[in-house]
């Protein structure tokens, strides 16, 4: 069990962020409860990835408030944030070419007890077990995505941030990743997902926030998705 389901685990208030001179986030507000899968939806360049990076502390300049388990982390460095139990899987996957699959998998240190043991990870991603000695970047796109998710599961982090895990993947792999996220939710992980593919997101998410021009402009639960479909099409331009 990763956390008490229902309790507020992440609270983001008036989050602003900059890349150099460019002001990207203009006051983001949202909450994530323990055990939930929350999805940030939005068009390209809306600020979804920047929101995750700001929470993780890897954006140079950010202001506002980010509380994780009621602890303020807006001024914390990314290594300290990781050690508090937040894990980040970047959009570009971040597989290291100088490391083999096993080294990539074992790279993130265990930050607390409760991470998935390797057997359970191989149960989730059987392909990885067969390719442990391959160079990380020699894997297929789907396998690299699995590796990127797998390596943060053994760290003991309770809160996972996944940035577009389905981008550029074949439908069958997307389905597999969907099953994995559903299983992780059952295991008690809390997941903050960034997705452009809301059809995929609808299979795993409990709630949605829509990001536009660096702000949250709407939010609804999965049960309200059907009623909000027209609005969502307009937001995402699909």
């Amino acid at each position, binding site marked *: 069990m990763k956390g008490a389901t229902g309790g507020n685990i992440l609270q983001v208030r008036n989050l602003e962020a900059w890349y150099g001179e460019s002001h990207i986030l203009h006051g983001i507000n949202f909450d994530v409860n323990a055990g939930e899968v929350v999805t940030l939806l939005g068009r390209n360049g809306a600020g979804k990835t920047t929101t995750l990076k700001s929470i*993780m*502390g*890897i954006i140079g300049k950010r202001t506002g408030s980010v509380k994780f388990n009621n602890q303020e982390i807006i001024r914390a*460095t*990314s*290594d300290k*944030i*990781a*050690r508090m139990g937040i*894990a*980040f899987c*970047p959009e570009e996957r*971040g597989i*290291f*070419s*100088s*490391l083999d699959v096993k*080294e990539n998998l*074992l*790279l*993130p*240190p265990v*930050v607390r007890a409760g991470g998935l043991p390797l057997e359970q990870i191989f149960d989730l991603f059987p392909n990885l077990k067969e390719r442990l000695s391959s160079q990380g970047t020699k894997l297929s796109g789907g396998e690299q995505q699995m590796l990127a998710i797998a390596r*943060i599961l053994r*760290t003991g982090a309770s809160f996972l941030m996944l940035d577009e895990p389905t981008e550029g993947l074949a439908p069958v792999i997307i389905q597999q990743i969907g099953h994995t996220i559903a299983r992780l939710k059952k295991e008690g992980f809390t997941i903050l997902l960034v997705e452009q593919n809301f059809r995929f997101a609808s299979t795993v998410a409990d709630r949605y926030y829509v990001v536009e021009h660096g702000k949250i402009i709407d939010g609804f639960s999965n049960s309200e998705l059907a009623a909000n479909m027209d609005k969502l099409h307009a937001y995402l331009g699909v």
Partner: protein
Amino acid sequence: MQALYAQLLVGLINGSFYALLSLGLAVIFGMLNIINFAHGALYMMGAFVAYFLLNIGGISYWWALLLAPVIVGIFGMILERTMLQWLTGLDHLYGLLLTFGIALIVQGVFQNYFGSSGLPYAIPDQLKGGMNLGFMFLPVYRGWVVIFSLVVCLATWFLIEKTRLGAYLRAATENPTLVRAFGINVPRMITLTYGLGVGLAALAGVLSAPINQVRPLMGADLIIVVFAVVVIGGMGSIMGSIITGFALGVIEGLTKYFYPEASNTVVFVLMVLVLLVKPTGLTGRAA
């Protein structure tokens, strides 16, 4: 024939210093992206620390092998914390100029107090004398330098290529932001890596002291050749630096035997050829 073996031995000994120094440079370049021109001065400091330990503290060569790299390594870590860390993300030229300036200051200070002539450092009693191998006479200390350097080089290679710590180093070389987001204190790791690279230079300095004497400019004479070695081996390549270091020492030795006039330039001729054919170096990867 005796002369050929003698030159081969000299080549292997020079190769040992090239390998240790270029290995330190490769580690520092890989992790910090800094072309560390202060490396020769730090090598010289290693020899001087050994000299001070012996003549002021009465501390033997054996302890100096451990203490000098630690002391000079700490000096290097202070340099990294106070100066080099501010160059992160800037063009290589800034690091090169800063470390070149540091080298000039350090060498200048030592020259001011100790002049330019060499200070003697005796070979430890246990390594005095020589062995008759039948085909040549091998001074024990020189054999020790070659074997010990090889062991240190291979141990460093093992540390970087085969351990968890080495995986952190290699990963942080590729993407320090992500490695830090995994919970690893990358700035501290960078400081320790610089300390390790500097420590290797200082160790080479201690090994060199009984052979070459202790001189303020001993590093300045060597560092240009070592940079050529690193360029030939491939910037940032660990095994490439070790193999090229020893190989070029031997090639230099053989040139001294067969065509002595070219012995001082053979490394640079090879560098030019390698740069023409494979600009990333023999074992380097394209950026």
